[in-house]
């Protein structure tokens, strides 16, 4: 066989490490930037950095290096998040944002299985996220169940409610399928608002998380230092996000991923070669919704409150735009995209009522100049270091 298995040792690892560090440092400064000048400076800096990276071929080096050491890349990413979090240990807001980014990333990893692999469109991501939050609200207030179990149950409930849509989702395609989920999202929000059983439009309070007596909502005292209680949620979310990431990645690089891709690209060819279309669509839809539900539960417990207005069609679109901006099908794209989509509007607070306008314009510009997203999906390689790159 003429495959080359040998070139993996050639690429050095330091470009990868440098890349991860640069991104980490940048994220840190971005999280902490408050003044207009700082935000603008960081924006300009990002552009210059990107130009410099591609001009001197650094991007390619980082990419090769990343492809060679996937484990290192993962570890690096986790380490970067942990470091950024550690440095901001008492900055509640920064930690809240970081955790939000991680939870949204988890949801989008799920959406990515749906949109990116099996081609099931879902414009009701926020609704399933919301189902998770509501499940957590109900179970945590009215049952003695351990909270980690509640998170898992929230995922289950979201997946189960999603299966109400299975029949129409399986029968429709493309824009028609989009309508089903759009209708469901709107229906969900309106229903919660009209029906008072779950708090109606005013929403519900959710108790903070508690695992084995460890109260997530209390600040952590270490010696003289008070660490923000958000660190609790951050660690949990990071764990969920990282595990999800690894699993999604494995799923992509397996026969499951292959089957889903074929279902997305050509149902006729798929059927001719025995691919069980319904099975993969259901798997993707259910997995994705379940992930949204779990993330929603943690998010709900962290913010302590849930109301229908959190889960509008607009919020579902935010999720979809993260998936698209990141580069559909590439889990690595989701993290930076989630950071941009969530943190940018927040950093634009200083332009007040103009921020949404500017934000929308920025997204359009990204779409025009990076039509395949920030990090376009790569060719599948089933096992690290194998010939496929």
């Amino acid at each position, binding site marked *: 066989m003429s495959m080359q298995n040998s070139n993996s040792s050639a690429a050095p690892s330091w470009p990868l490490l440098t890349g991860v560090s640069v991104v980490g440092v940048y994220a840190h400064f971005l999280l902490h930037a408050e003044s207009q000048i700082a935000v603008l400076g960081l924006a300009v800096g990002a552009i210059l950095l990107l130009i410099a990276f591609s001009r001197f071929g650094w991007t390619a080096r980082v990419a090769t290096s990343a492809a060679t050491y996937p484990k290192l890349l993962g570890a690096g990413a986790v380490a970067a998040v942990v470091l950024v979090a550690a440095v901001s240990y008492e900055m509640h*807001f920064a930690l809240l944002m970081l955790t939000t980014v991680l939870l949204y990333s988890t949801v989008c990893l799920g959406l990515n299985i749906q949109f990116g692999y099996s081609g099931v469109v879902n414009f009701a991501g926020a609704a399933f996220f919301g189902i998770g939050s509501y499940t957590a609200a109900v179970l945590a207030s009215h049952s003695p169940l351990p909270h980690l179990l509640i998170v898992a149950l929230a995922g289950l409930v979201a997946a189960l409610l999603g299966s109400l849509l299975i029949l129409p989702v399986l029968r429709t395609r493309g824009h028609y399928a989009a309508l089903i989920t759009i209708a469901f999202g709107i229906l969900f929000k309106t229903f919660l608002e009209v029906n008072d059983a779950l708090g109606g439009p005013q929403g519900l309070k959710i108790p903070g998380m508690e695992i084995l007596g460890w109260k997530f909502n209390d600040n952590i005292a270490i010696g003289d230092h008070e660490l923000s209680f958000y660190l609790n949620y951050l660690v949990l979310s990071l764990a969920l996000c990282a595990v999800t990431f690894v699993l999604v990645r494995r799923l992509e690089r397996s026969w499951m991923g292959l089957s889903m891709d074929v279902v997305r690209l050509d149902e006729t060819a798929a059927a001719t070669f025995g691919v069980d279309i319904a099975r993969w669509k259901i798997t993707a839809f259910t997995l994705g919704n379940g992930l949204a539900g779990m993330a929603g539960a943690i998010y709900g417990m962290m913010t302590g409150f849930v109301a229908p207005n959190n889960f509008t069609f607009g919020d579902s679109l935010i999720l979809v735009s993260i998936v698209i901006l990141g580069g559909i099908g590439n889990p690595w794209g989701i993290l930076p995209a989630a950071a941009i989509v969530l943190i940018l509007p927040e950093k634009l607070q200083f332009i007040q009522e103009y921020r949404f306008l500017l934000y929308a314009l920025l997204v359009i510009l990204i779409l025009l100049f990076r039509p395949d997203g920030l990090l376009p999906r790569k060719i599948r390689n089933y096992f690290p270091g194998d010939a496929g790159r």
Partner: protein
Amino acid sequence: TPASARDTVKIAFIGPLTGGVSVNGIGGRNSTDLAVRLRNADPKSKYRYELVSLDDECKPNVGVQVATKAASDNSIIAGVTHYCSAVAMGTVDVYHKFGMPVIVWGAVLPEITYGNNHKEIHRVNGTMVNQNEVAAKFMTSQGYRKWAIIHDTTDYGKGHNKYFSEYLTKSGGQILGTFGVTADQQDFTSELTKIKELKPEVIFFGGLTPLGVRIRTQMDKLGVKAQFEGTSGIKSDAFAEGLGKDLAEGSLSFIEGAPWEKLPGGLVFTGKYAQQKYAEAPEAYGPFAFAAANMILDAIEKVGPNRKKVRDELNNAKNVDTIIGKVTFDDHRQNIVPLITKYVVQDGKWVVWEDSEYGKGKRKLMGR
């Protein structure tokens, strides 16, 4: 002391600056900004104040986010916060947790103050309970008996529906039908046709200006002849402008607080507001935001920029003079509003009922 030598103290404003109800948020923001500017221009003030305004988009999750941002920033001493009730409900715990005193300037749900015992949470505007009690009694005293209710399905509309219906039945009014509508609904013809069939004397509307304008306009289109009665949410210039003089004529609204247009302080407010050339009007709740900001600024002047002290100072507010009348906080730090003011549109302007030709008997409400 020269202005530059004064220490800078930050206070926050939080409200909806984008989206459907942003008019009110921007009006509140401008009013708070006005209070800060006036204070900074005052040579007697001890500090230079800086306003940090944040947009909660009228969404609870965003609200919690920005509340955390403000509350976890210890340089921000206190806040003038929230127009939307669901957002306020979501954030009260955050303020409590971080110990930042805030005064709610627009959200009307009773539970915001009564649903917890957080010493940080105050409210200058009244709750929908006060408003609706007066509204129901006043209308029945005018001799009306039959109502149809339209309310939006947000916390605002649903709350108003609940309390108004309660007081109305107590005062002997009869409700022929209740219709919930979504906040972005455009067409009400089927609801109104149904109402036409029910032949009520009054249509009570619980919701905000944009919806109010649409419903009143479509009532006219369909020939629904009934008195139009709204809540505090329609008491805005935009309501009268959006309908035009003729259609708006005779519409009623009830709002907590003294009629600030008539108080000397209120006139100053209007004058100064105009001077700053804000692009947007203060809207109904701007004066509340202005009053809340001033209470906070006064407290800081008095006890210094310290959250706990400011909180305690605010807790004890009794008979504080503001442009919305005297403010006294009860044991839930809710302003015991001495007064609900009734307004009626007369010749394209909201006029205090007692001063209007209606109040004086020269013009008649519909069906009287």
